[in-house]
């Protein structure tokens, strides 16, 4: 989604009512962030919004990116935020062989998750399509990709191929390298 560098663009302050709405929406989508919400979105801090290409928007506080929101989807936490609160969103794991493809912006395919190095949650913790997940990598501690799942985890297990996530935000993409000063 953000393969290209993002040109510096205008940003504007967010109305406090909109900020409240966003906060509400965040807590609905990510119950995992609830304990930290005061730290992420303090009531006092002035939230700013930056326009990104493809009609996406990015929410920032003090030039630190927090969430970006595609035109038609839920807000997705920026990777730096995921790194700060790794337990807040569910994660899957890909094998080592897939890392280099992910970090160059390829769509995530099922074999990277179903192979021995990958990890998918059990049936009772299954994640539905449309949810936002972080993708960890075999042998690494940090999340390297966040995005919306295209297929449920049970589907992935049974099919074993096909697209799992496209248009994610990965380490080293335009959004990661964005300059906000």
């Amino acid at each position, binding site marked *: 989604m953000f393969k290209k560098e993002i040109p510096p663009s205008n940003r504007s302050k967010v109305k406090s009512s909109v900020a409240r709405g966003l906060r509400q929406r965040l807590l609905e989508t990510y119950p995992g962030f609830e304990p*930290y919400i005061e*730290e992420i979105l303090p009531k006092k801090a002035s939230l700013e919004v930056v326009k990104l290409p493809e009609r996406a928007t990015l929410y920032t506080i003090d030039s630190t990116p927090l969430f970006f929101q595609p035109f038609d989807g839920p807000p997705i936490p920026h990777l730096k935020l995921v*790194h*700060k609160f790794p337990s807040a969103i569910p994660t899957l794991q890909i094998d080592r062989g897939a*890392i280099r493809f992910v*970090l160059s912006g390829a769509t995530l395919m099922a074999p990277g998750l179903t192979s021995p190095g990958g990890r998918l949650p059990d049936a009772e913790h299954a994640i539905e399509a449309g949810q936002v997940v972080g993708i960890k990598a*075999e*042998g690494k501690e940090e999340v390297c990709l966040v995005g919306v799942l295209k297929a449920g985890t049970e589907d992935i297990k049974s099919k074993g191929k096909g697209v799992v996530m496209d248009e994610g935000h990965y380490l*080293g993409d335009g959004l990661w390298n964005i300059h906000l000063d």
Partner: protein
Amino acid sequence: MTDVAESGPLEPQARHVVYCGVCTLPPEFCEFGGTAKKCEEWLKENQSDLWNRLYSEEALSANLSTLKVSVQERVAKDAAKKEAKAAQNEARDAERKAASKIQIKRVERNKRKYVTVVIGLEVHGLENKKVAKELGKKFATGSSVTKSPSGTEEITVQGDVSEDVKEWLLDVYGSKVPEANIELIEDKKKKKAEA
């Protein structure tokens, strides 16, 4: 990586993650960034305990054992290619920087009135829009980014301030802009008041 830093007075629950100073990724992903060698050096200098953990013999061999040999070779080849490309890019960039001149032009607008046009700052890693704003503040004149007929962006400052712009550039952005690359040009060579 797991060292927890106090990041705020309230609820210091955020983890503090170290990012590589060269490629900005978390250090464990440096090998995929294309500048692995430099990253390793940086990490060794700045975060030695982390370096010990990531680049020790065992860690490296553990990494390799999880992949098949043929895949390993391919990965290594890929990484080498990427690295070469990055190095090449950097070299080209440096060359371009050395070759490209920043032109400060004095353009006659209306007999005795002039505007100063600055071209070529973006090659040296400066942002036209920001510099324009700063220039406007500095000289208390209008200053804007305009598109030149050839499609490139240039800064137009009202008034004849070419000498001052040069001085100011060297003063403020001296580290980014070599003096030899700044050219003063007078568009209309009617009188040579300066020099």
